[in-house]
């Protein structure tokens, strides 16, 4: 993309941030809900570990398990902040896709840019407060060390790629609104599937062997598990490199699929009518 074009799309990111802040009260609601569910997670796993036969379940100690789950939960607010699913879904449902073609701008990248704005507002409104609070609590109660600067750096690089993968998947699922109007049902299926396979509910080491291997070849793990493992310093050197490579591959593949499918849809809209 030419720099002049990037400026165009930046305007949409700015709009995404602004609309994220336009609903700041609902963001506080989410914040409260997330804080409560984090507490529930903590006590649930405390009970599980207390009743387990050993201190280590699936190779993870209680401290590792809790920090993984809570970081994953907080990471979800960032990675799944994309609004592309709703935007494209509603645009299809209300027949606005055709009208959006009037503007000299790529629809798919427009949504990505808008979602990136949402990402930034989620970062400020949700991620930073929740993350700093839980890290401090962990540090003072469970004596879990605060991740280093370098880990945070890699983590953010990885999270941005994760976000792009999540956005592509959301865009693709959103396109299904062409066949069904049940956006809400689609969203529930999407959220459950994504949160399960991305490792946001459980690390993939809990999956049966065959599933764990299958997952290595699918894009889901790259969304939550990879960046959290990086944050916790579990991946280093060669492993770090290969996971980044994996994420890059998925970003490109999914982006291509999005563009292809959207062009096919555009053709249909242009020849058949909105």
């Amino acid at each position: 993309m030419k720099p002049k074009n990037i400026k165009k799309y930046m305007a949409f990111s700015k709009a995404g941030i602004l609309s994220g802040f336009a609903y700041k009260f609902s963001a506080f609601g989410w914040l409260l809900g997330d804080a409560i569910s984090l507490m529930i997670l903590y006590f649930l796993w405390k009970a599980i570990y207390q009743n387990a036969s050993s201190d280590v379940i699936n190779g993870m100690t209680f401290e590792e398990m809790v920090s993984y789950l809570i970081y994953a939960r907080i990471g979800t607010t960032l990675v799944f902040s994309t609004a592309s699913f709703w935007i494209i879904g509603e645009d299809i449902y209300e027949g606005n896709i055709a009208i959006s073609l009037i503007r000299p701008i790529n629809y798919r990248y427009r949504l990505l840019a808008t979602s990136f704005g949402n990402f930034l507002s989620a970062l400020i409104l949700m991620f930073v407060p929740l993350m700093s609070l839980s890290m401090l609590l962990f540090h003072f109660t469970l004596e879990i060390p605060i991740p280093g600067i370098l880990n945070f750096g890699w983590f953010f690089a990885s999270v941005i790629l994760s976000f792009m993968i999540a956005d592509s998947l959301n865009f693709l699922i959103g396109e299904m609104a062409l066949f069904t109007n049940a956006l809400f049902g689609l969203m529930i299926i999407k959220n459950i599937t994504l949160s399960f396979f991305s490792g946001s509910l459980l690390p993939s080491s809990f999956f049966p062997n065959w599933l764990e291997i299958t997952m290595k070849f699918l894009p889901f793990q790259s969304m939550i598990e990879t960046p959290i493992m990086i944050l916790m310093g579990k991946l280093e050197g060669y492993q770090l490199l290969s996971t980044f490579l994996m994420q890059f591959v998925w970003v490109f593949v999914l982006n291509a699929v999005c563009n292809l499918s959207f062009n096919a849809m555009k053709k249909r809209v242009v020849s058949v009518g909105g």
Partner: protein
Amino acid sequence: MAMIELRNVKKCFKKPVRKPGILGMFKTLFSMKYTVTEAVKDISFSLNEGEIVGYIGANGAGKSTTIKMMCGILTPTSGEIYVDGYLPYDPKQRKHVLGKIGVVFGQRTQLWWDLPLVESLTILKQIYDIKESDYQERFDFIKEVLDLTPFLSQPVRTLSLGQRMRADLAASLIHNPKILFLDEPTIGLDVLVKDKMIQAIKDIHQRYHTTIVLTTHNMDDITDLCQRVIILDEGIILYDGPLKMLKNKFGDIRHIKFTCKEKFDTNVFKHHFDGLCDVVLEDETYSIAFDISKISINQVLKVILDNASVSDISIVENSLESIVKTIYETKKY
């Protein structure tokens, strides 16, 4: 050179044949049967730079379909459309057209729902890559004519219909398009706001010399704005020409309406004008319609006043509305 040119444009829509019921719905999923409807049958016309054209027709006449084709949202089944020399629906030529057109669809907004109007305009400035000085000049002018100042910093979702419509018009003009498509821009507006809109469109046209295509069901908008009208019905053009000609063709008809205290014998008119005027009695009001090129208004009034004790009287000019109504009904010009 013509700004917009349509040559034998035709547009068919293919729709799957739907069968009723749940079972029918499943059958539809797998059936390959289609019905083809011709929304636009064969349309040709060309518009020059700076023209304002009223594009009118009954519901379902194919107006919106034509507008969508001219914007490049739909591709014609056959025929060509040139907008400033380019085909708008051709993927390679689109980009030459998109910066030159502005569109307002009265039925839906193109603004960003959650954002203040001013932000939406800034985004458009980026999208169309408008120079700061040009933007400022146009922004000040549009803000003035459309009276945007009171709601400039409000999110679009909180605007009233009239405000939203003005905002949409502003958004479609900010990149100084050569061509402006207005698809029912005054729908649902009250008289005051509507007049403001019309005045604004006039001012904008005067200043920027924009070519404007206006579709509406409100004939007052057409009489106020357009010199030329195109009347469309069932996908073909019934009339294309100056507004004045339309009036002449259908005669300069006047309607005299009056009420009287006593019963009045309408045969007097037959006796005097011999079938050159129509008399209708409706709710105790007599209505006389006649062509002033054939009978002088003087004579008619004299006959009325001589024969009836009039308690109220009014003279009405034949409106565009009634002409168009006749055209729609008779399907011919």
